[in-house]
C-alpha cells in the first residue's frame, strides 16, 4: 500500500510523459513539410515497480526517449542514385550546348558549308576562267574555314565555362564537408552522453544528400554516431569532426582538383562534378579531335591536288589552305584560306585558262576516303551520330534515373514521412491520457482533503 502522495506522483509522472508525447506529436506536425525530416516517435516505458511487503506496485510511465524513424540503408541507396542523377544532369546540361553548335537539323550546319565549297568548285568547272566564279570558290572556302573556327571556339568556350562550374562545385563541396564535420561532432557528442541527436542527424542526412549530388561519395559508419565520408575512389573528405578542403589548380589550362596535394581529378566519376569533368576532359576533346582530323585532312588533300595544277597566269598552284599544324592538333581552330587572288586558283592541268582538269580532281576529293579512309561527308555524318547518340542515351538514362529516385523517395516517405492522419490520432490519444491523469490528480486531491478532514 503506497501513500496518497505516491499515487500523486504516478499521476504527475504521467502528466509529464503525456505532455512530452504531445510535444513530439506537435513537432511532427510542424515538420510535415521539412525536407529530409524523419518522423519521431515517443517511447513511453513503465518506470521500475516498487516492492511494498508482498505487493509489487507499478510506479507510472516515463518518456524515455524520442526515436527518429528512418531506414539508413534506404537513405544510403538514395545517396547513391542521387550521384548518378547529378552526373547525368550536368552531362546533359553541357552537351545540349554542344548540340546547339552542331545543329544539322536546321540547314546551317558544317555539312552545308562543306557541300557549298565543293559545289562552288563544281560550278567553276563549267567556266574555269571566270573570275566571279573563282571568287565564289574562295568565298565558299572562307565560309567553310570560318565554320570550323567558330565551332572549335564554341567548344573551347564551353570547356572554359565548365572550368568555372568545376571551381564552383568544389567550393560548394568544401562548404558541405565543413558543415558535415561539425554535425559529426555534435551527433557523436550527444550519443556519447546517451542522448538522441535527432534533428542534427536529419540535417546531416540532408547535407550528405546534397553532397552526393555534387560528387560520388562513399559513407562509412565510424561508430559513435560519426560518419566518415570519402569519394568513391577513397579520397577522404570528412573524417570525424575534421574535413579535407579540396583545392583547384590549373593544370594544362584546366582547373584540376587537388586533395592534400594529390591530383584527384581523374578519380571523380559521378555526381555533377563527375558529369562536368567527363564533358570537359573527354567528350569535348574527342569531338575537337574529330573536327581537327576533318579540317587537317581536307586542307592537306586540297593543297596536294591544288599544287599539281596551274592558275590563270600559268604558274603552278600554291597552297589553297594555310597548311594545318603538324599532327592536325588544333587544325579546326586555325583553318584559313591562303589564297586571296581568284586568278591564283589552280584549275588547269594543261596550263590553259579553259582547262578544268585540276578542278575535277579537287571535286573528286568529295568522293574519296581522305579522312582516315572515309569520305568527308561520311566522316562528318558519323560525328553527328556520335554526338546525338551520347545525348539521346544520357537523356533516356536521366529519365529512368528520375523514376528510380521518385520510387525511392516514395519508399522513404512511407517509412519516415509524417502522416497528418496519424498525428491527428496521436493528438487525441495523448490529450485524453493527459486529461485522465489530470483527473487522477483531482481525485487524489479530494482524497487528501477527506483524510485531512478525518482528523479534525
Amino acid at each position, binding site marked *: 500500500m503506497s501513500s496518497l502522495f505516491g499515487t500523486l506522483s504516478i499521476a504527475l509522472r504521467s502528466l509529464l510523459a503525456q505532455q512530452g508525447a504531445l510535444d513530439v506529436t506537435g513537432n511532427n506536425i510542424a515538420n510535415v513539410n521539412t525536407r529530409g525530416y524523419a518522423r519521431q516517435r515517443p517511447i513511453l516505458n513503465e518506470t521500475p515497480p516498487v516492492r511494498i511487503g508482498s505487493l509489487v506496485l507499478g510506479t507510472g510511465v516515463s518518456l524515455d526517449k524520442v526515436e527518429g524513424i528512418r531506414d539508413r540503408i534506404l537513405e544510403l541507396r538514395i545517396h547513391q542514385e542521387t550521384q548518378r542523377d547529378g552526373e547525368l544532369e550536368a552531362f546533359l546540361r553541357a552537351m545540349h550546348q554542344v548540340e546547339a553548335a552542331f545543329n544539322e537539323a536546321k540547314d546551317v550546319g558544317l555539312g552545308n558549308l562543306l557541300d557549298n565549297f565543293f559545289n562552288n568548285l*563544281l560550278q567553276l*568547272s563549267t567556266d574555269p576562267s571566270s573570275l566571279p566564279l573563282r571568287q565564289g570558290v574562295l568565298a565558299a572556302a572562307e565560309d567553310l574555314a570560318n565554320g570550323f573556327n567558330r565551332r572549335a571556339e564554341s567548344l573551347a568556350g564551353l570547356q572554359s565555362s565548365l572550368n568555372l562550374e568545376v571551381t564552383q562545385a568544389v567550393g560548394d563541396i568544401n562548404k558541405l564537408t565543413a558543415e558535415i564535420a561539425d554535425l559529426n561532432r555534435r551527433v557523436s557528442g550527444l550519443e556519447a552522453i546517451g542522448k538522441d541527436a535527432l534533428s542534427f542527424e536529419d540535417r546531416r542526412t540532408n547535407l550528405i544528400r546534397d553532397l552526393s549530388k555534387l560528387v560520388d561519395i562513399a559513407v562509412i559508419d565510424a561508430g559513435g554516431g560519426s560518419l566518415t565520408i570519402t569519394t568513391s575512389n577513397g579520397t577522404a573528405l570528412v573524417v570525424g569532426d575534421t574535413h579535407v578542403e579540396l583545392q583547384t589548380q590549373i593544370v594544362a589550362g584546366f582547373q584540376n582538383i587537388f586533395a592534400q596535394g594529390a591530383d584527384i581529378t581523374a578519380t571523380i566519376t559521378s555526381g555533377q562534378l563527375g558529369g562536368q569533368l567527363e564533358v570537359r576532359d573527354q567528350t569535348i576533346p574527342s569531338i575537337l579531335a574529330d573536327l581537327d582530323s576533318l579540317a587537317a585532312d581536307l586542307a592537306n588533300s586540297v593543297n596536294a591536288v591544288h599544287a599539281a595544277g596551274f592558275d590563270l597566269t600559268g604558274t603552278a598552284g600554291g597552297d589553297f589552305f594555310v597548311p594545318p599544324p603538324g599532327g592536325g592538333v588544333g587544325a579546326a581552330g586555325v583553318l584559313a584560306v591562303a589564297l586571296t587572288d581568284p586568278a591564283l586558283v589552280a584549275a588547269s592541268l594543261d596550263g*590553259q*585558262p579553259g582547262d578544268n582538269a585540276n578542278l575535277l580532281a579537287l571535286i573528286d576529293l568529295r568522293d574519296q576516303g581522305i579522312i582516315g579512309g572515309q569520305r568527308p561527308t561520311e566522316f562528318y555524318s558519323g560525328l553527328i551520330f556520335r554526338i546525338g547518340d551520347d545525348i539521346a542515351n544520357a537523356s533516356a538514362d536521366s529519365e529512368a534515373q528520375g523514376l528510380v529516385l521518385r520510387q525511392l523517395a516514395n519508399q522513404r516517405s*512511407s517509412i519516415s514521412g509524417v502522416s497528418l*492522419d496519424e498525428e491527428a490520432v496521436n493528438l487525441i490519444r495523448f490529450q485524453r491520457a493527459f486529461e485522465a491523469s489530470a483527473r487522477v490528480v483531482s481525485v487524489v486531491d479530494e482524497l487528501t482533503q477527506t483524510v485531512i478532514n478525518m482528523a479534525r
Partner: protein
Amino acid sequence: MALRINPDTSGDLLAALARTTKQENKALAELASGRRVNFISDDPAAASAMVINRSEVRAMDQFLRNVTGLRALLQIADSALNSVVLAMTRVIQLGVEGANGTLTPDNRLAVAAEVQGVQEQLLSLANLTFQGKFVFAGTAVTTQPFVLDGGAPSGVRYDGNANVTTVEIANGETIEMNLPGDAIFSDPAADLFLAVNDLIVALQTSTGIPAAVAGVEAAFDHVNLVRGFYGSALNRIDSTEFFLGREILELSRLEEGLVGADLAETATNLIGAQNARDAILAAASRISGNSLLDFLR
C-alpha cells in the same frame, strides 16, 4: 502491421505534370517546324543519315544548274556550226557557178570576191565567243583560235589547242563540253580554210576549179559529220536534266520520311498530352489536402 502508405503524394503529382508538359512541348515543337527531328539527339540515326542525304541533294541541285548553263553554250556553238554549214553550201554553189565554162576570167574574179566575203564570215564564225571566251579554241579560251596568217597555205593559223574540257553533270557522269576548232575547221584530211582558199585561188586563176570544189565539198561533209557532237551533247543534257529532276524528288521524299513529322499523329499526341494534363490536375484537386484534422473539431 501492414505496410505504411506514403502520406505525401505531391512529388508524384509534380512528376506526372512535368511529364505531360514535356510531351506537350515536344508535340508543339514538331507541329511548328513540321519536323520530327529538331535536334540531332531527337533521332541520331536519322539526323546523320540526313547529313548525307542533304549533301547529295545539294550536289544534284548544282549539277542541274551546271546543265542549264551548259545548254546555252552548246546551243550557241551548234547554231554557229549551222551557219557554217549554210555558208559552205553557198561556197559550193559559187564554186559550181565558177566551174561553168561560159564564164569569163573577169566573171570568175567576181565570184572569187564573193567567196572571199564568205571566207571572212567563216573566220568570224570560227572565232565565236560565249561570255568572253572563245568556243572553238580547245582549252586556250582566252586566245583567238583562228588568225590570219599570210605564210600559212590555208591563209589562217590555228592558235588554239586540241584539249577537251569535261564537266560532271551527274554522279560519276561527265560530258565533254567543247570540240577543239582544229578538229572542225583544220582537220588535215578536210581542212575547211585550205579548201576555201584553194577555191578562191582556182577561181582567180581559172584553173583546177572542179578539184577545188570537190575539196570544199569534202570539208562541208566533214563539218556536217563533226557537228553531231553538239547535237548529241544537247540530247544528253536533256535526258540528264529529266533524270536529275526525278532524283532530287526522290531524295526529298526520302528526307521527308527520315525527319518529317506526321502532322496528324503529332496533333493527336498534342491533344492526348493536354487531356492527360487536365485529368491529372482535376484528380489532384480532389484528393490532396484532406486529412483527419479537417474532421476533428
